[in-house]
């Protein structure tokens, strides 16, 4: 037998069966391979091994001649990094892999820029985009050309640590970061206050009243007190600058660090020699103010991150739990997080499987595109495993949960949430690119002004150069867009609008045509009883009760509408026996010993005889259901789809904004036209196939329209991806949500109007921010170069300009 067999037996207790590393004591990770439990060292290995076994590749363990892949000998990697290489969470479809990583040590927009820049230099990285507000890095790479561990290693070299997203670690990291920043702020503040005390006599004293030895004493004391601020509080800037220099880029920390170091070094020299200017007060104040504005920014970021966090816990939505299975019983909707091993859940077509499990009843096609990138649905039947996150594409199945939702490989919606905001709209990219040029230009400019003043008036060269370095604020430029977008995204999330792609706010603001789907979008997609008419002498409440009793066992939309109507009107509860369903016709059964039929006219005529006593022809779009007994017509129920409550207000809002409204529906033409008239929609097309909807949208686009599409349902997926910006109803199918740019989580159509309002306000704030940042720099830098600003005034200006940008963005959150 090959080596694998030997490994199966002995060392399983001490070393990980998958990678061979030591299993920590008390580990509970294990995988059943060939009928035996094998211990694993970590959830990563467990997931990999489980995936291997699940794929029917358990032979791998029998045939392998060594433990699973480790880093090669020449470039030893921290073992934990190497583990991620095989992590199935990151195995994308095709050649490209995709991952969301949590990055530790993000300080401000400068870091984002640095990280993206560094990673894009690596061969094989397709895209890297960092979200400042959530500290997450969305990464795509060619798995043949680069390993994830190499990417993580590169990040580590420039001073950042990245992990696959882990909620516990994230919370811990946030706590640690805010504690550190708080301490640095405190130290800087304390030394700033004290240094100012020592400087005050020098500023206030008239010439000649302060003797040289006293001045010397004060200066040495200031020097001592500035040390903690430089050594401890200024760390973020010095480290950031160092990291960006090592990565051979010019980060935004570079001028800041240069300013601090130059001012401090100049002051030390002056103190030592006992003559010349000292800037200890400016240095400490600059550090304090800069830290304060970062503290503000971090608080804002953290708020945005908590909203996403909350959402994540709520997102794997819910599952329909059949608690009594295999006995028949009502399904109960429970939060997916509460599912435990062994629960049986019902997965309807279009729904996402809430947790990993095994099919126990039914046969269906499942769409794994979200998990694997494989687009063709795969047929699964009884006994097959299904991963959480797969989308049920054809028929209802019952699934026995194998792992609780918290442990499941992936939930599709979670991924959506993580992708939210991880890429940048064009306007933010522009700001980032210009910020890098800005830094380079600034350094040259500072050098030039130093040279000019050296030649002109050597004594002023240092203060001017320091002022130029300190006064400029590339951060304001770089923060302008992300801070506004983070605040807007966060606010919309609070209103139930999950923005998945970055361009949404920008494009929605520009949209000229808003296209709506009808069923499930403008309407609730559920039938409701509009009228219940009784014939001749029948008792209304009794008829409703009988109808409800007959329909009780059926899952048909009409049956649910009648049951809801009965509950609403408080009709007495009755029980039916001997129920028989005639497909496409209706039901028959006995209530209280009398036979009844419910269904369409011809079905009921079979028992009631002759023709139904028509009251009037039913309106277009209304369905009618008759109830009858032996020789007698009893009642007629008129049902129709209900328009969402906030549909009218939403449409009115868009109309008032001068947007063109279009209604596209697969429903009957007359029904669609009637609704368009009712809702004052200018253009409506009924009877559209998905392909026709797509053509219509593309035709609009070819005439220069910017189309926003609102829809639900599997059949809308294509048109949702074709539209410039798209919204999917949260109650719709997961497939539609994946194709959409935005998910309306609470299923309120009015949320789109909220999104549109927020979009236009966000664009306004971004423009204000950029204008402010540009204007500030244009005014402040030349002023500093002319020697009109001294270093401490520059420090205030720089910190204030960052704060203005962040505070302006935070306005979006309120109201």
């Amino acid at each position: 037998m090959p080596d694998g067999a030997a490994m199966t037996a002995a060392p399983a207790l001490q070393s990980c069966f998958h990678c061979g590393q030591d299993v920590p004591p008390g580990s509970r990770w294990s995988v059943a391979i060939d009928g035996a439990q094998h211990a694993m060292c970590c959830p990563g290995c467990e997931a990999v091994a489980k995936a291997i076994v699940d794929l029917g590749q358990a032979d791998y363990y029998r045939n392998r001649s060594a433990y699973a892949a480790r880093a090669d000998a020449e470039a030893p990697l921290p073992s934990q990094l190497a583990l991620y290489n095989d992590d199935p969470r990151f195995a994308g479809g095709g050649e490209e892999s995709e991952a969301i990583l949590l990055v530790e040590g993000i300080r401000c927009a400068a870091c984002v820029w640095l990280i993206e820049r560094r990673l894009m230099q690596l061969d094989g990285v397709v895209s890297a985009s960092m979200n400042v507000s959530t500290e997450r890095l969305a990464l795509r790479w060619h798995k043949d050309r680069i390993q994830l561990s190499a990417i993580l290693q590169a990040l580590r070299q420039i001073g950042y640590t990245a992990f696959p997203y882990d909620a516990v670690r994230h919370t811990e990291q946030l706590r640690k970061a805010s504690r550190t920043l708080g301490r640095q702020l405190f130290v800087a503040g304390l030394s700033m206050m004290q240094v100012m005390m020592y400087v005050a006599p020098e500023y206030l004293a008239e010439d000649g009243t302060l003797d040289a030895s006293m001045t010397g004493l004060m200066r040495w004391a200031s020097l001592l007190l500035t040390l903690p601020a430089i050594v401890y509080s200024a760390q973020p800037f010095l480290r950031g600058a160092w990291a960006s220099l090592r990565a051979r880029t010019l980060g935004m920390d570079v001028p800041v660090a240069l300013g601090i170091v130059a001012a401090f070094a100049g002051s030390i020299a002056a103190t030592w020699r006992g003559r010349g200017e000292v800037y200890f007060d400016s240095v400490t104040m600059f550090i304090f103010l800069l830290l304060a504005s970062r503290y503000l920014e971090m608080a804002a970021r953290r708020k945005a991150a908590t909203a996403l966090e909350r959402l994540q816990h709520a997102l794997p939505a819910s599952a329909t739990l059949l608690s009594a299975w295999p006995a028949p019983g009502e399904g109960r909707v429970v939060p997916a997080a509460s599912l435990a091993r062994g629960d049986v859940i019902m997965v309807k077509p279009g729904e996402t499987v809430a947790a990993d499990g095994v099919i126990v009843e039914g046969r269906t096609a499942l769409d794994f595109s979200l998990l694997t990138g494989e687009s063709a649905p795969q047929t699964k039947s009884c006994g097959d495993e299904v991963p959480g996150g797969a989308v049920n594409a054809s028929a209802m199945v019952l699934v026995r949960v194998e792992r609780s939702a918290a442990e499941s490989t992936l939930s599709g919606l979670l991924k959506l949430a993580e992708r939210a905001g991880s890429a940048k709209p064009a306007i933010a990219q522009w700001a980032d690119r210009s910020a890098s040029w800005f830094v380079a230009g600034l350094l040259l400019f500072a050098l030039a002004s130093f040279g000019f003043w050296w030649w002109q008036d050597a004594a002023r060269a240092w203060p001017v150069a320091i002022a130029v370095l300190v006064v400029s604020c590339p951060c304001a430029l770089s923060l302008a867009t992300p801070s506004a977008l983070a605040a807007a995204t966060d606010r919309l999330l609070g209103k139930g609008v999950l923005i998945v792609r970055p361009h949404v706010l920008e494009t929605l603001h520009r949209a000229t045509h808003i296209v709506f789907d009808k069923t499930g979008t403008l309407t609730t997609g559920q039938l409701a009883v509009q009228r219940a008419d009784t014939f001749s002498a029948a008792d209304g409440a009794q008829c409703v009760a009988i109808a409800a009793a007959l329909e009780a066992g059926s899952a048909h939309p009409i049956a649910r509408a009648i049951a809801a109507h009965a509950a609403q009107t408080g009709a007495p509860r009755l029980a039916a026996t001997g129920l028989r369903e005639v497909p496409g016709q209706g039901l028959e059964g006995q209530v209280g010993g009398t036979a009844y039929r419910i269904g369409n006219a011809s079905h009921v005529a079979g028992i009631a005889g002759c023709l139904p006593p028509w009251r009037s022809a039913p309106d277009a779009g209304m369905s009618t259901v008759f109830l009858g007994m032996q020789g007698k017509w009893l009642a007629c129920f008129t049902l129709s789809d209900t328009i969402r409550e906030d549909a009218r207000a939403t449409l009115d809002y868009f109309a008032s904004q001068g947007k063109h409204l279009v209604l596209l529906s697969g429903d009957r033409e007359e029904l669609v036209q009637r609704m368009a008239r009712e809702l004052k929609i200018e253009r409506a097309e009924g009877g559209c196939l998905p392909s026709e909807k797509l053509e219509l949208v593309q035709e609009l686009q070819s005439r220069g329209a910017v189309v926003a599409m609102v829809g639900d349902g599997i059949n809308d997926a294509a048109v949702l991806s074709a539209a410039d910006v798209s919204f999917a109803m949260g109650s719709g199918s997961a497939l539609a949500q994946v194709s959409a740019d935005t998910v309306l989580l609470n299923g309120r159509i009015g949320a789109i109007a909220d999104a549109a309002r927020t979009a236009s306000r966000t664009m306004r704030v971004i423009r204000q921010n950029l204008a402010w940042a540009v204007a500030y720099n244009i005014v402040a830098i030349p002023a500093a170069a002319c020697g009109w600003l001294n270093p401490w005034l520059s420090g205030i200006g720089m910190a204030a300009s960052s704060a203005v940008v962040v505070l302006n963005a935070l306005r979006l959150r309120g109201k």
Partner: protein
Amino acid sequence: MEALYLLVPLSVLLVFGAIWLFFNASDTGQFDDLVGPALRVLQDDDRSGEF
């Protein structure tokens, strides 16, 4: 004025002392929750105040 030669170094020491105290307090988690303890004082039920 000679007193300053004593007082200035003393004030420097005082600041370093304050920093040391602050770090100790921060290490024991006193600044982790700045809202909760203030509310807990107001709770009538002393038992729930322990956690």
